[in-house]
């Protein structure tokens, strides 16, 4: 989940709301394809078969999946307007992208202090104990035209809202 390096220090405008992914739990069917496509999108080859079966390292998804009986849903970073994680980050590895308003993460800057994990009220950041750094956090697929989980949810349980809270469809950009 690499962000653009030089952007991290610039103050972002307060009233710029980022796009936001929203999950409607009443339509989640528990297939977990959101995770599959998140992993694929963030892999080197962007190809699902290569990402899962090839030799390249398989990334973690930026999604926490919860399931209890017939209720399930996927949770990812909400790119909050006023993110508690930004306040807690000791190194500035978590930063807000000036253009999109999204909360991004520079893996090389992270020292694994776990302050973000302590602060995120959604528990959306995954610790990567092996590499002593925050492991995975949704970046709204900045490098793709549309977030992979939204584009591939078979039941449209995951949708994308634009800056004004209106639903965006794949060909809207």
């Amino acid at each position, binding site marked *: 989940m690499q962000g653009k390096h030089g952007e991290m220090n610039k*103050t972002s405008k307060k009233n710029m709301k980022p796009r936001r992914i929203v999950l409607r739990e009443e339509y989640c069917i528990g297939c977990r394809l959101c995770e599959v496509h998140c992993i694929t999108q963030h892999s080197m080859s962007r190809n699902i078969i290569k990402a899962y079966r090839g030799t390249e390292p398989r990334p973690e998804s930026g999604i926490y999946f919860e399931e209890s009986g017939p209720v399930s849903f996927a949770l990812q970073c909400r790119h*909050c307007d006023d993110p508690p994680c930004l*306040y807690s980050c000791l190194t500035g590895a978590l930063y807000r992208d000036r253009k999109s308003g999204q909360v991004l993460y520079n893996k090389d800057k992270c*020292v694994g202090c776990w302050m973000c994990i*302590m602060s995120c009220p959604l*528990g959306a950041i995954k610790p990567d104990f092996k590499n002593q750094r925050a492991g995975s956090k949704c970046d709204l697929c900045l490098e793709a035209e549309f977030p992979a989980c939204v584009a591939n949810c078979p039941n449209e349980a995951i949708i994308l809202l634009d800056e004004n809270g209106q639903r965006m469809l794949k060909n809207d950009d």
Partner: protein
Amino acid sequence: MTIEYLIIGNSTAGINAAEAIRETNNTGKVTIISDERIVNYSRPLISHYLGGKITEEKMIFRDREFYSDNRIELQTGRKAVSINPGRKTIVLSDNTKIKFDKLLIATGGEPIVPPIEGKISMPGIFTFTKYDDARQMLDYMKKNKVKQAVVLGAGLIGLKCTEGLLAQGITVSIVELADRVLANTFDRAASEILEKELMRNGCRVLKNDTIVRVEKSAGKFAGAVLKTGRKLKADMLVIAIGVVPRIGLAKGTQIKTSRGIIVNDRMQTSVRDIYAAGDVAQAADFLSGGKSVTAIWPVAARQGRVAGYNMAGKSTEYSGSFAMNSVELAGIPTISFGLTNPPESPEYEVLVRTEPENRFYRKIVLKNNRIVGFITLGRIERAGIFLGLIRERLNVSSYKNSLLSDSFGFLLLPSEYRKHLVTGNGIEV
């Protein structure tokens, strides 16, 4: 007329204040004064630096471009010594004066140094709160081939310093006045788990004791004598028994202080146009309702931001702080919030789950069915959910029994709260 914003202190409170001012007012002049020379750095990381785990680069959380991009004038190596609220000026140690329209005091804290017999200007004795401390310790360790060290104080600073020393291959003896380590952060059970781990990593932990005299040899520190009479031989001593807010600048002014500089919900001090934020401030306490000093990085950041908004004219209320810590000690990640060690009283309900063989411990403290305290050792995933529950003051009675389970997550919370989080704007720190 351009408003002149002056900020004393270049750590997270000061920087967040500057960012908040710039967001709100693009035309004002923003100046930050720092008595350190480094561009800025993250204080909690000095132990990582000491231990050789990170470079100086990584400690910096805003680089030089930050100041130039945001037109913030940074003056390093300059120390403020007094404030004249009437004239609206501050005086620096080199006698220069700087005017201000709005002032923020974000001077942080300073270590408590007790009077110990024989201590005066003895090389090899350090405190551990600043980058310079770590830098000097590393130089000293190298020059004097330090092999053994004594750390006085088993609080967060003392133990993090210990981690750093251990990583450099130095054996450590920890001396603590209380009967357990981390007495201010954790409860007895958690302290015991961590103490055991520290001992397994080769530390000596001497409780119920303190240093009464230090001894010299060849012109530098060579050992300490404890209250119990015990003698410790060592090459270096680190004093880490606590930190107090640096309220010196308030002396001689009408700025009200107690332990720290007292501020209201807008981070204003008792003197007009003067604000305070961060480790130096005594601000609203979320749990007790009174005011307290909460010297924690995210709290300082948030206070700085609120102060900055208010200074720039955007009225913002501070909702209060509570203790929150994330610290990895002896290889065990830990996270704790709020009142971790409640008094014995029927109004507090305590839920505990402990698996000593897995070095796992989790405790939740409830008052009126609301979470007011939380400790987790060993497993920290999604601990932030509990921070959210504390902040929202949610009544957890309907799912109290699932709070400690492995699968605790949003599905066990009421769906209205879940939907609020999913579509809402998150929660303030």
